[in-house]
């Protein structure tokens, strides 16, 4: 009577038909985009049209797919802003969204476009125009060195909050949790992922916020893909690695569209079947919490695991405020002796150890 057994019947839902949300974070820091070699290989306009095509392709996959675009700006360019979707549609008295406000009537004979594509493009371009205008106002162009890095943490946070809002909406009714391997968010049935198109390096002071975002994404099974058009980033490498996303540093920026279509377009369900670029060597360096320097070797609080480059003042951990005891001589290479109570021990030969102050 096995064929009558209904228990497994519902275990595998049709995974290919899940709606998919793609959040694109685009780095609009003007310095890398306007300096060689990037400006000749991949001018911003071309990159933008490639990205719009890519987003259209994502929408083409399914009626239920959604897209959001966020701009991450330079430190003095204001915070991250959501370019698309812009704002809520007005609702009528019963709370149902009204049909779209009447558009200016198109000229007869004018070529038209699939409406969702058109909305996306117009929305993104309008939003981008507004953001660029505000950046121009603020930045008087004097201090160029400061501006060549991009704050990514704000954009990541915004993306995660947006995903939570959209996916969380379905949580009450459709609380089917799918197997973790498909990379779905736990609440609702909307699969989400974040794609970061980055052209600049990291801001070391952002280490803690960025890592917090990465852990949140990890928890929710949201892959963070990174497309490094130019520049180097330690944190983004770790982000892609930790969340199971795709990280690529483009050697040939003029092939941008093809990179996007092949490596970044398949959604988490399709990725199960595809071999995607992985990173061989991930740079796992961290930044210290006290001076925000990137460090190789440092001190770690044994309670809250925060990282410091030097011993904190008064031996008090800056994050959890625990009073720590610190024995002199953190770099100890001990032979296999009996451990005396209360002393820091070292591990095997050769590898420099991180001294762990104990309470």
């Amino acid at each position, binding site marked *: 009577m096995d064929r*009558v057994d*209904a228990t497994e019947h519902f275990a595998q839902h049709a995974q*290919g*038909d899940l709606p998919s949300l793609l959040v694109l974070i685009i780095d609009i820091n003007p310095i890398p985009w306007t300096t060689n070699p990037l400006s000749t290989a991949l001018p911003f306009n071309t990159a933008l049209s490639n990205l719009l095509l890519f987003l*259209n392709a994502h929408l083409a*996959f399914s009626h239920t797919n959604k897209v959001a675009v966020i701009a991450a700006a330079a430190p003095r360019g204001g915070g991250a802003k959501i370019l698309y979707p812009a704002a809520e549609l007005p609702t009528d008295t019963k709370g149902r969204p009204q049909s779209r406000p009447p558009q200016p009537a198109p000229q007869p004979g004018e070529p038209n476009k699939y409406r969702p594509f058109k909305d996306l493009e117009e929305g993104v371009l309008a939003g981008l125009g507004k953001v660029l205008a505000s950046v121009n106002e603020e930045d008087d162009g004097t201090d160029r060195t400061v501006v060549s890095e991009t704050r990514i943490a704000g954009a990541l946070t915004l993306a995660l909050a947006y995903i939570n809002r959209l996916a969380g*909406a379905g949580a009450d009714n*459709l609380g089917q949790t799918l197997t973790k391997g498909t990379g779905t968010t736990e609440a609702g049935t909307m699969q989400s992922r974040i794609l970061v198109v980055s052209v600049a390096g990291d801001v070391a002071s952002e280490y803690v916020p960025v890592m917090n975002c990465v852990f949140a994404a990890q928890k929710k099974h949201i892959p963070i893909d990174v497309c490094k058009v130019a520049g180097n980033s330690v944190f983004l490498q770790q982000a892609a690695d930790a969340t199971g996303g795709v990280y690529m540093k483009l050697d040939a920026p003029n092939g941008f569209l093809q990179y996007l279509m092949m490596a970044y*377009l398949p959604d988490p369900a399709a990725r199960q*079947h595809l071999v995607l670029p992985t990173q061989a060597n991930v740079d796992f360096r961290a930044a210290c919490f006290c001076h925000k320097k990137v460090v190789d070797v440092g001190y770690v609080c044994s309670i809250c695991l925060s990282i410091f480059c030097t011993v904190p003042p008064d031996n008090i951990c800056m994050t959890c405020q625990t009073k720590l005891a610190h024995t002199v001589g953190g770099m100890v290479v001990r032979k296999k002796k009996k451990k005396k109570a209360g002393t820091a021990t070292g591990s095997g030969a050769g590898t420099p150890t991180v001294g762990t102050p104990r309470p």
Partner: protein
Amino acid sequence: MSGSLQSFEQLEALPPATFKKLYQEPCTTLALFRRMLPNLAKSIVMAMLYQDDPVPMSFINAWVKPTSRREKEMALGKLRRLCITSEKNQKLTLDATFKASFREALTGGSRSFGTPCTTEDKHPVTVEYLDNYATAQWEAILHYMVGTESERKPSEGVMRLLVAGGLMEKRSRRAEITQAGFSFLLQDANTQVWTLLLQYLSMAASLRMDHVEILHFFMLLGSLDLGQAYSKAGLTPTQLNMLEDLRDYGIVYQRKSSSDRYYPTRLATTLTSESAALRTVQQGFDAAMSQSGQGFIVVETNYRLYAYTSSPLQISLLAFFARLSQRYPNLVTGKISRQSIRQAIRMGITASQIIDYLTVNAHPQLRKNTPVLPPTVVDQIRLWQIEGERMKATPGSLIRDFSTERDYRETLNYAEELGVLLWRNDQKRWFFVSRHEQIADFIAQRARAQAAKAQGRA
């Protein structure tokens, strides 16, 4: 979901020339891409879309994980059947028309997506009105099928369609619902709409209407905006004829047949979307608006049924397979019992249809469980169906009386290769096949060969 894919599989049987014509329009290309391809196939198409050279098969093989070979074969097979890709010299090429149309769909620049009206409508129509219109038209059809009395009767054309599609049959004066009709009723709205439309398509040949243009119009409707008026200009004569019929189904709305604009209803705009969220038409609308479908049936482990509905259509559907005992203004209660299920089986409904219907319309409270319906109830419904099927009967022929073991073995192997072997008994040298003509030929051939050999020796 699988139901709608099945109805699309009919489209796969179209000849390559038809596909070529279909791919000339970007909106049809987009719609077919969305609905007919499995996920992996879509990814493959996208990867090749902006490549100008053919892609070597070795590349595709390397790109897909070795463990997913089955999905890969399925995807490639589908692409081939739909004439989207062709293979030559171990290289995969994307069909040129398809490629051009799809690129155009992504970048815009064609006039394939419907021409919105430029002038104001003297009698403007709201989205709510369109929804009500579509619901009324569609439910009239369903009510007619179920046999409940309703004020609106569907038009002659619709009734002809239902009979032609095998969903109803003419008996004495009025038409009665058939077994296929039952399963039709229990499907979700999107599948139902497509079933009717595909039936329309197959009847089109007899009405001398062009297949391709009909399909174009269907896909076009799927890409239109709700609430926006579209002008009739730019539609071919075939498509103009279709407008009349589509009005009857509630898919488009026109104030009069002579007006030069038409409004797509929600049934139209959701044609090319996935069916998962659209259950009945009414719930489809709710689902589309509130972003979370409203199921209304609760099934308990003690076989009791509670349905939060007051629609006569839903209640009649439930009465097919459950015994309804109490009715409140917003709730109907009943019980699923052996008798009620057996009665449904006698009418021709299968256990799977009942279970699918219950799952699709399950109350949000129920959806929090996995699996959605209590497995005891599901298993029991199937068991009750099997109870009636105590034996399995297969027509065919018994082959017996072989003179030698060798004759028996060889004929047996031949039958096995053909795939017609159903039962065998090696001691008695008997076996049972579903089709015996080829076996008979084989035996005769062997006999002739043996006779010739014997003669040759003699």
